[in-house]
């Protein structure tokens, strides 16, 4: 089995994110922590689980992003992936069509049986890159998958796609295919010491984005802004004890306690 896992390095939303002075994008400085997109961690783990079952499996990791994105590829190698590919580009806010077109361009003719991706990125939240890659490659895709089962002696995989409202749909999908993974599908492993040591000596293949055919974006980010400040909320101030008392008082007034 040959698997490609698409990962994105994203700014940690818990770190100090601010908009730049022209409100065009976030400030990218050393106050921001970057990490692997959480959804992609689950996608990677799902590939590693297949490799546990079918030991001959080869897992390639691909990430499109600026210089720093190589760190996320390295992390994936430490978890047990076999090869890392970093498609380097200057722009850290590529649109879905741009990102998916270069990944598809790289992946075509390389014979991947399954391409995994997270269901969305935590920064742009579009849920589009996965199905767009599948569309460029003319392969079927299943999205928001919460369970996969290999089918014996078959080129099909049984997947469970999560619909909204707590429903799941069982789908049979034929390889080659693309699967976007929802969180909770598995419990991502910690890197083993031996894999961390192995990853140290592994070279990441760097590809300049200019060398690949990219579909020019159909969209343009005009500006960004903060959501409107809360208008109705009461901020409860004071010491922790005072806050607790005030809150209980408010609950009491509303006959909640």
């Amino acid at each position, binding site marked *: 089995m040959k698997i490609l896992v698409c990962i994105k390095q994203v700014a940690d939303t818990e770190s100090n994110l601010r908009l730049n002075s022209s409100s065009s994008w976030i400030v990218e400085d050393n106050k921001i922590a970057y990490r692997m997109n959480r959804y992609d961690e689950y996608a990677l783990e799902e590939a590693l689980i297949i490799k546990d079952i079918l030991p001959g499996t080869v897992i390639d990791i691909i990430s499109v992003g600026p210089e720093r994105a190589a760190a996320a590829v390295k992390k994936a190698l430490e978890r047990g992936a076999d090869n890392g590919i970093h498609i380097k580009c200057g722009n850290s806010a590529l649109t879905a069509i741009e990102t998916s077109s270069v990944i598809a361009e790289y992946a075509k003719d390389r014979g991947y049986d399954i391409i995994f991706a997270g269901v969305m990125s935590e920064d742009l939240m579009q849920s589009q890159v996965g199905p767009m890659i599948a569309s460029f490659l003319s392969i079927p895709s299943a999205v928001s998958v919460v369970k996969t089962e290999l089918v014996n002696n078959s080129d099909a995989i049984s997947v469970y796609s999560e619909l909204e409202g707590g429903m799941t749909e069982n789908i049979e999908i034929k390889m080659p295919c693309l699967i976007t993974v929802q969180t909770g599908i598995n419990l991502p492993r910690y890197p083993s010491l031996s894999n961390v040591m192995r990853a140290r000596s592994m070279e990441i293949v760097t590809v300049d984005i200019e060398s690949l055919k990219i579909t020019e974006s159909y969209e343009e*980010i005009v500006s960004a802004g903060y959501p409107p400040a809360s208008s109705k909320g009461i901020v409860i101030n004071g010491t922790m004890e005072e806050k607790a008392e005030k809150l209980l008082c408010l609950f009491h007034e509303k006959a909640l306690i």
Partner: protein
Amino acid sequence: MNKTKYNMIAVLDTIENKLIPQSFELIAFAESFTQGDLLRTLLVVSGSSVIKLCESISENYGIDTAALEHDELYYPNPELLSELLIKITGEHKPEMVMFTHTIRNCQCASKLSVSLKASSATAVESFMRDNEGYVFQRSVFNGKFKENVRLKNPVKIVTVLPGAYTLTENRIPRNSEASVIQMKFEDARLHVPAVKHRGYKPLSLSSEADTGVKLEDADVIISAGRGIGKEENLELIRDTASIFQNSAVGGSRPVCDQRWLPFNQQVGITGKSVSPKLYMACGISGSQQHIAGMKNSQCIAAINKDPNASIFSISDYIIVEDLVSFLPVLIRKFREKYGECCEISDHPAD
């Protein structure tokens, strides 16, 4: 056959031939987008047998409606649906194709976008018109920021976030002549090259069985988010729940992903939608998908150590504290003040 060229197509998708509840919000979006002129808007209802449904929609709303029928559309089948839509869109060349924002519709939007070279934006919350066209607003970075995206190409595709638009209940159909079109597809008649590649077969649907607790029935829900840090701290959430009558414990997606709470206690688009008298969000940052599942609560109290947490934007009571230190104080204060006169239930539902 109807000869109208539609410039706007709104796709109302069904599950087992029943409309999803948010479908009507899409009509509201279409109405807003066309400034009330829906004469060149076509509602496309997909399913395996939806002609009756289309007749009632067309009659109630006065909008032309097409039944897009295929045996394999009984269960959601975004792969097939997008192929059929590519065909329809090719005929009508609309300016806009719109969907309700669901993950499977993002899949459709993405496939349409690649095939038709159409601009697309998912989870849009609003739009603005300017002299260069349209700019759509959507949330990014887990709701910390909004971005404004211009869709540049002639064909535009959007998925509209549930809750962003609401249909006025007493809408009077403006076009009493609205027609119903039947589009029945069988594979043999579909000359779309992609069909032969289709290795996608929906088999069945299932809902997670509810065991015991009904989050929906609780008056008070105390919900835990990633901020609880470790599973043991769920005890604090349970203890807090115990100070209220008819209370239950809920959680955000990350807590359920960790298996600290079962998935049927998850609140959000992908879990339960709740509207209790009090929703207390503890250590929940407030992702869009979570907020959509609880924003209709009558009273929302949020405890988070991050003063910029998005949950605060919809909260009635805001407490900037680490829940691990704050909740024990809250429970102690409750016992000091109300402990004697209130009966504390020993076994809150969780």
